[in-house]
């Protein structure tokens, strides 16, 4: 009932762990797989070890609205990451290796390494909103996006997912530049910040960060709906999904599967199992046999 297939990869349910949340160490990813996730995207990994920004790196908005983070692409570097993947792969669910870089060559080399480590797909982080020289700075340069996607596509056999930024007025143009990708992942965080008025300064050490969680769900749903109308490429929806209803909303907008990050803050790692249960109940109540029937159901033509 809940299983979905994206680019021929089978997921037991459409709920995939989003990049950057609890996916730095292999043991944690293994635990998440065992806790019911349908798949796992790794932390975005780069060519070299990176410590990320100093604390504070996370600011929690009141009333469970979401969080602002600027972890700063902390990662152990691609060479050290094989060991983590070896453990994560024991979970038996598809693992998608997320990579970031600033040139097409860098992306291609990282993707190649990920493929060698045994990932089921690679995800290109073209969208982190707070790291200079990486992420969305790369991801809004349409020429570069086209080069990166094409370089990675010719380097690896596994499917290539392009994770795009909502922080643009030209999402369609960027998606068109990434059209060689096997799937679009929408959305990464929304660029934002918070100031502590008593401290009289920004909270995050990097000042700017990325907004995630319930607050950004309307932005993510919009992005999925907008892109699903214009492209046949499968879409993975992400941004603020916290309940089964949220996941259904994204799928009705046009997502073939979804990713979940910040919800873990509110619901713990059981979020996957619980949300899967909520989706299942809704499908039964509404007489729908397969979750994949939802995909694009709310599109008004």
């Amino acid at each position, binding site marked *: 009932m809940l299983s979905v297939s994206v680019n021929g990869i089978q997921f037991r349910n459409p709920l995939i762990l989003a990049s950057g949340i*609890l996916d730095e160490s292999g*043991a*944690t990813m293994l635990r998440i797989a065992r806790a019911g996730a349908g798949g796992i995207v790794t932390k975005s990994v780069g060519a070299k070890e990176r410590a*990320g920004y100093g604390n504070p*790196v996370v600011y929690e908005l009141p009333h469970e609205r979401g969080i602002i983070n600027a972890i700063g692409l902390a990662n152990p*570097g691609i060479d050290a990451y094989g060991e983590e993947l070896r453990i994560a792969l024991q979970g038996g669910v598809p693992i998608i290796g997320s990579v970031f870089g600033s040139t097409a060559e860098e992306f291609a080399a990282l993707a190649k390494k990920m493929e060698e480590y045994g990932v089921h797909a690679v995800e290109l982080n073209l969208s982190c909103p707070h790291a200079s020289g990486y992420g969305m700075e790369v991801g809004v340069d349409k020429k570069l996006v086209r080069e990166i996607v094409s370089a990675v596509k010719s380097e690896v056999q596994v499917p290539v997912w392009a994770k795009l930024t909502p922080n643009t007025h030209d999402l369609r143009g960027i998606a068109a530049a990434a059209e060689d990708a096997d799937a679009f992942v929408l959305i990464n965080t929304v660029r934002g910040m918070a100031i502590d008025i008593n*401290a009289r300064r920004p909270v995050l050490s990097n000042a700017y960060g990325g907004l995630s969680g319930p607050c950004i769900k309307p932005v993510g749903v919009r992005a999925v709906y907008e892109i699903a109308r214009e492209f046949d490429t499968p879409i993975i929806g992400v941004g603020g999904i916290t309940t089964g209803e949220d996941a259904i909303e994204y799928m009705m907008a046009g997502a073939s599967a979804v990713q979940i990050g910040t919800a873990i803050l509110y619901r713990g790692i059981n979020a996957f199992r619980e949300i899967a249960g909520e989706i299942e109940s809704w499908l039964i109540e509404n007489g729908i046999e397969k979750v994949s029937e939802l995909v694009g159901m709310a599109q008004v033509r």
Partner: protein
Amino acid sequence: MYRVVKIEEIIDEAKDIKTFKFRDSSSPLPGQFYMVWLPGIDEFPMSISHIGVMKGFTVKKIGAGTSAMHALNPGDKLWIRGPYGRGFEIVDGTALVVGGGSGMATLAPLIESLPEPDVIIAARTADELLFTNRFKNANVHLATDDGSAGFKGFATQLAAKMLDEKKYEMIYTCGPEPMLLGMVELARRYDVKIQASLERLMKCGIGICDSCSINGYRVCVDGPVFSEELFSMDELGRVRRGPSGKKM
């Protein structure tokens, strides 16, 4: 969302260790911690060392953040969020509490909540011993590596002696990881239950960044106090991760 609290009093506890007293309306359990932000400097985790209306953090000077905190004066402010994490679970029966170095900060409010625990306060040398005169309800034993006070030797050695002599229901411990690893070994050997509070590098403090994880357990949310899980943690005392997440 941070709360701003005012430092009401600062107490010199031991070499490089100070307690900062403040008022705050939260209700932490022994073993829980807060994230303490010094704007423009750093943010780091701190266990609660005094619960009740007047609360306290007992802080050992380690690096830039804790040094900056040591330079503060009464009247200065701290930005805090929390309490976070899973604290100690207090169980009936005889208790052995073993604290090494600043680990005593974490254990202090627990000790005050136990009826008549046996307590080992350990440090490398006498002037690093913490809270030697604090507990009215406990049987306190001191241990120093150099023998400058109490038992001469490691906390684990003294603990082994005490475990030989008495049947304990629960071991509670906090301190350097090699010591914790030793205590877990003892718990296994003497077949005693154990709760240990761990320290790991923390970034988010709320269970999403994975930087504090040990064998897939997040110290900030699944811990910092662990019990049964300790026996299967092969990274305990062996593997740490730096800020990049790379194993060190």
